């Protein structure tokens, strides 16, 4: 039962990172251009799906509370400020999607909310992941780091890294969904983004070695972990080649694969801890009566339906979008 719910949680979180990742990335790219034509194309490349993407964040949040309440309580309270900023960012960008088309006078406000909200949300997510990897200060099963315990050079670095990663995913998505100038500029951007991301990975690695982070020990204990960077490297190569040959399909899948590999790396190096090196999955799990109550309805019936629904909405939305006809 515990295994089942860990898997559900992992799938929800991974889906959230992949799906909202690219649309947050597009939000960041949106802020980089002033051209209304391009902006509209970008919005229409995610308009029909972004809300569904964010559903996975709420799903992850509530499933975490219902199945691992101790982890939920610890993380939500430890990440008080970053969580607040992330939520404010997500709400602003969410309503900006709708309201920017309904006003001209105030459009600047919603545009700023869309780009700024996406950037802040992405940065805060990266920072929180960084703080988790570095290890949250926890004493007697409770967070003991104060208001800014999550803030460090390393976590900020991870925040920047995730923004880069999301932007790369966003650019790959634009290639897949758009034509013309938007697609061309995304192609131009990808080499720089990939290079920046590579530099980021090297810096993180060196930093982790220098600081002798506990996570690094995992790599020696569990050599099969090296499979993940290998997969990521192959994906990166395919991505580079297909960008060179201007093939629209593969870059996004490959970018997503890099993210899956990164997610897998984290998950396996944390295992069996949920909050690294202080709270394990078994310690955090809700009692059997809670997990079983959830399993027979939400887990067995509704969760597969949600997955199916997600797949279907992406199938309906496949192919290139034509901004002039699809979104006003």
């Amino acid at each position, binding site marked *: 039962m515990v295994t089942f719910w860990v898997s559900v949680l992992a799938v929800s979180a991974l889906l959230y990172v992949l799906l909202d990742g690219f649309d947050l990335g597009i939000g960041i790219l949106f802020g980089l251009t002033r051209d*209304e034509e391009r902006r*509209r194309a970008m919005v*229409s490349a995610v*308009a*029909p*799906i*972004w*809300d569904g993407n964010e*559903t996975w*964040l709420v*799903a992850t949040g*509530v499933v975490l*509370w*219902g*199945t691992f*309440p*101790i982890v*939920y309580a*610890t*993380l*939500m*309270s430890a990440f*008080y*400020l970053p969580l*607040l*900023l992330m*939520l*404010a960012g997500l*709400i*602003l960008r*969410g*309503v900006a*999607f*709708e*309201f920017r*088309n*309904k*006003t*001209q006078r*105030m459009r600047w406000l919603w545009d700023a909310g869309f780009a700024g909200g996406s950037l802040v949300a992405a940065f805060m997510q990266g920072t929180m992941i960084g703080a988790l990897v570095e290890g949250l200060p926890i004493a007697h099963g*409770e*967070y*003991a780091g*104060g*208001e800014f315990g999550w803030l460090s050079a390393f976590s900020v670095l991870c925040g920047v890294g995730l923004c880069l990663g999301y932007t790369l995913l966003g650019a790959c998505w634009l290639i897949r969904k758009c034509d013309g100038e938007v697609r061309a500029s995304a192609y131009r951007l990808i080499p720089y983004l990939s290079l920046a991301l590579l530099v980021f990975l090297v810096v993180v690695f060196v930093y982790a070695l220098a600081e002798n982070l506990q996570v690094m020990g995992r790599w020696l204990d569990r050599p099969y972990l090296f499979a993940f960077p290998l997969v990521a490297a192959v994906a990166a190569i395919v991505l580079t080649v297909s960008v060179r040959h201007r093939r629209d399909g593969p870059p996004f899948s490959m970018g997503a694969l890099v993210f899956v590999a990164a997610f897998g790396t984290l998950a396996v190096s944390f295992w069996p801890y949920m909050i690294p090196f202080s709270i394990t999955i078994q310690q955090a799990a*809700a*009692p059997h*009566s*809670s997990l079983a*109550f*959830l399993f027979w*309805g*939400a887990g067995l019936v*509704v969760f597969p339906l*949600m997955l199916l*629904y997600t797949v279907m*909405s992406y199938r309906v939305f496949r192919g290139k979008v034509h901004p002039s*006809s699809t*979104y*006003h």
Partner: protein
Amino acid sequence: MDSLAFLLSRLQFAFTISFHIIFPSFSIGLIAWLTVLEALHLATRRPVYRQVFEFWLKIFSVAFGLGVVSGIVMAFQIGSNWSDLSRMSGPIQGPLLVYETFTAFALEASFFGILLFGRSRVPPWFYLFSTAMVALGTTLSAYWIMANNSWMQDPVGYVMRNGQFVPNDWVAILFSPVLWVRFPHMLLASYLTGAFCVAATGAWYLLRGQFHAEARIMLSMGLYLAAVLVPLQLFFGHLNGDYVHDRQPVKFAAIEGRWHDEQPASEVLLAIPDPASETNKYAITVPVLGSVIGSMSLHSKEVGLTDFPRADRPPLIIPFFAFRIMVGCGLIMLLLAWLGTWLSRKGRLEQSRVLLWLIFLSFPLPFIAILTGWFTAEVGRQPWVVYGVLRTADAMTPFLTAHAALTSLIVFCSVYTLIFAFGVVYIYRLLRAGPAGGLVEPTPGAVPQRPLSVVDEPLEPTPRLVPVVTSAAHRRSTGNQPW
């Protein structure tokens, strides 16, 4: 624990949840009414029903969307500000919230898609069925939320183990008698919200001399519905009072403004309670009525607030006044609904501009009643968060600082106010534009998961290209411009 952080956290929760409840209560009522409307359309084939349906479907979309957006915060702030509560009650409250999220996703998102796109693609009976399914989805959402809150009012079906509430009887939790009087009370409140907003809109159009056919349907259906539902609501309100009387006597004493034991008890209709001297000033009371309301008897003894230690009493002022405002709103609604229905039966309603004005101005009443009802229930539960077991003060995140709590309060207040302002202006513009003209064609970019996308009405008044155009033609004429 930082007591300022505690106060700010309570304020934040009160603010965000009060803000949030406005939208779901409106949309739950509206979609239920839309189901009735669609059934009438199917039965009578009168196109005007469809006209009204399509118009209110747009409003529903906006309200539904704002409810979803403002609800996201709820899933997270219980953990961030109330980490000890979420740690302890997670095994019970967590799963209830998972079911809420999952059923909402499964029923509302998928069938809402059919409401938007399916009119021409599915048979009429299936379209009606989809409307009913969306209504069922919102109703189930309300059920799970009420299950969650009712468990906090009257915790059942658990044992304490390792400092956690461990569920050992889900049937007791899901079918608790407290839940099954509170859930209908909330549902009826939502239906009344829908009914009064619809009737008020109808009255507004009639006063302006517009959209006559649609306005008459809105007005009469809204009023007839309210005329039946308000008495039913008063009955369920009474049942709620009974559970409070039996299970939360201290809350009951606070609501009644009863400081000391009385036998037989009088009923305080209005007063200015003075907590310092533990008496009521300028009280208007009715002898014996207190015993009748509390125990259905002429000589029962009713307990007063001073029977309980100070540390276990709720603050009296808020429940006392909030309850009276709620009941006052209910009585005004009853009067309006019955008077309106009576005049409407006699065919004289449309001549009575005074009553039309009153009905038009009555639309805030159900919202005020819902908010004050919740204030009564929640403030009256204090100082407990899980009644009788866990104090609110022990539920807060122990290390939360006033600084952090103030930051989040300010951020949420500003973000919510911004959205609220735009949302309300937007709904107002949709209502003002009215149901005239053609039927809504959703924009191609519109999708079920983005309810706000259904309507492409601009927020600002657009310069009219042709002096006299109906609003639908107007919409079409501006539709090609790059909004």
